[in-house]
């Protein structure tokens, strides 16, 4: 697997697939029993390249006796910034991750989401070329996730290379130039999100409103109701016939969208295959 310069690369896989293990290997937190990896052309054992890397650990935890500003200042010191630079960068980062008002509170009083923000701030504090984020959205509320997405896009626009792991597929589909899918400790595919899951349509979904009436009864049976709307899935070839039928019943069409297989389905398929394989091995073993 190779991550190219300047791209946003999503590292996908279900829980326990080996995403964090791979990232820990890259960061020198654990050591490989076989194989090798390089970052920015240097072997991962070379600590000097950490100058150009930012890393957000999974469920990050920092010294809880420090405030957010102090912990960022501590990390900034390792990069050799002087006092004025450190102060400026720390304030800028706190603002960027929405913690400017909480910068002077000890981290022991922080929520999980706030710690995640501190983690993100320390990862990008030194303006690294490569940012590695392990589950950056976990523990965040929808607003926080949106903010993290914006930061990732901002980093991308600034020409940074970003590798992030996630099991939240919509994030990957939204942000990634390419994804790598890992399951059961093995890499199952690398490519654009579209190429991984295929672009073949799986039908059309029609969303509509429907007034009461005898003519509508048949349609109601085929559709599912959510709120005041109904939704109905039809094969591509049957779309026009279905629309005619809806028109005849006096339905008001809200939207017609193509149903594409999602990464989620790709995931489920992979996990399903793994389980089937594991079961087969178990049976043959017996």
């Amino acid at each position, binding site marked *: 697997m190779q991550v190219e310069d300047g791209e946003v690369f999503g590292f996908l896989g279900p829980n326990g697939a080996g995403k964090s293990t791979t990232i820990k290997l890259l*960061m020198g937190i654990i050591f490989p029993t076989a194989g090798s990896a390089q970052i920015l052309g240097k072997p991962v054992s070379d600590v000097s390249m950490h100058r150009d890397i930012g890393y957000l*650990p999974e469920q*990050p935890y920092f010294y809880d*006796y420090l405030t957010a500003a102090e912990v960022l200042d501590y990390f900034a*010191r390792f990069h*050799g910034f002087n006092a004025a630079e450190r102060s400026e960068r720390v304030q800028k980062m706190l603002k960027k991750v929405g913690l400017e008002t909480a910068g002077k509170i000890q981290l022991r009083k922080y929520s999980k989401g706030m710690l995640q923000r501190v983690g993100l701030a320390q990862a990008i504090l030194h303006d690294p070329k490569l940012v590695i984020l392990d589950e950056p959205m976990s523990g965040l509320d929808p607003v926080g996730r949106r903010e993290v997405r914006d930061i990732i896009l901002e980093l991308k626009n600034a020409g940074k290379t970003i590798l992030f792991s996630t099991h939240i597929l919509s994030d990957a589909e939204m942000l990634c130039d390419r994804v790598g899918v890992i399951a059961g400790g093995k890499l199952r595919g690398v490519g654009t999100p579209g190429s991984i899951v295929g672009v073949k349509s799986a039908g059309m979904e029609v969303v509509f409103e429907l007034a009461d009436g005898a003519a509508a009864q048949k349609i109601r049976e085929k559709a599912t109701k959510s709120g005041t709307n109904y939704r109905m899935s039809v094969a591509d070839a049957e779309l026009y016939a279905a629309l005619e039928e809806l028109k005849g019943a006096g339905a008001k069409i809200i939207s017609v969208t193509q149903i594409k297989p999602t990464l989620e389905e790709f995931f489920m398929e992979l996990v399903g295959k793994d389980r089937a394989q594991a079961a087969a091995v178990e049976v043959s073993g017996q």
Partner: protein
Amino acid sequence: MSRILIVARNTFREAVRDRVLYNLVFFALLMIASAVVVGQISMDIETVVMVSLGLSAISLIGLLIAVFTGVGLVSKEIDKRTLHAVLAKPLRRWEFLLGKFAGLVLTLTVNTAAMAAGLFLAMLFVKHSIVRGDAVVLVAVYFILLKLALVVALAMLFSCFTSPLLAILFTGGIYVAGLFVAQLRNLQSTQITPQLQKLLSILSFLLPNFENYDVMGAAAHGRSIPASLALHNTLYTMLYCGIVLSVAAVIFSRKDLK
């Protein structure tokens, strides 16, 4: 070097914020109570009692901090996973280890210096004067500090490859054994075989010799301590700490963190 100092500074700050230095309040109360009691009950031996008591308290409090905090220096960071973000910085693992060691030794230095100041105040209260000969107490305090540095190094070594509880037991065990190095070396008994005797003798050279640091008797009675012993103890501590920390660094550098 600067990266080691960054870690050391933060380790000191952690100790201060975790209220490690609060033990000084206990020491101060002990000194005040002792000075009052000793001043009332003894005639000629008040200084001996005061110095012995003070140095014992400095040593014991220091040992407790050195063992318990020393064991937690690295293991706590591994357990809480605070190390992950730190090691992602341009910092080598041995630098981190050395920084942690330096930070705790700095904490112990400040703590021991404060306690020594307390002891001198108590001596002043009891004797009504401090004379030049009392400087020997400072040498005794310096030896305690050297001993504590060695204990911290041992605690860190054990915490690199075993659980915190076992590391505390190992460090405590080595410390106690190190107090009887001379006896171990010159053990003459018909009860043990010559092979075992030889083994114990070899062991006595490997164990840290904590006996050399104990000059409490001399300090309490105002006897001078030879400069050669001060030099010997200083070099011995530096060498022994160097070896122990090097082994710890090798183990820690290869350790898979969870």
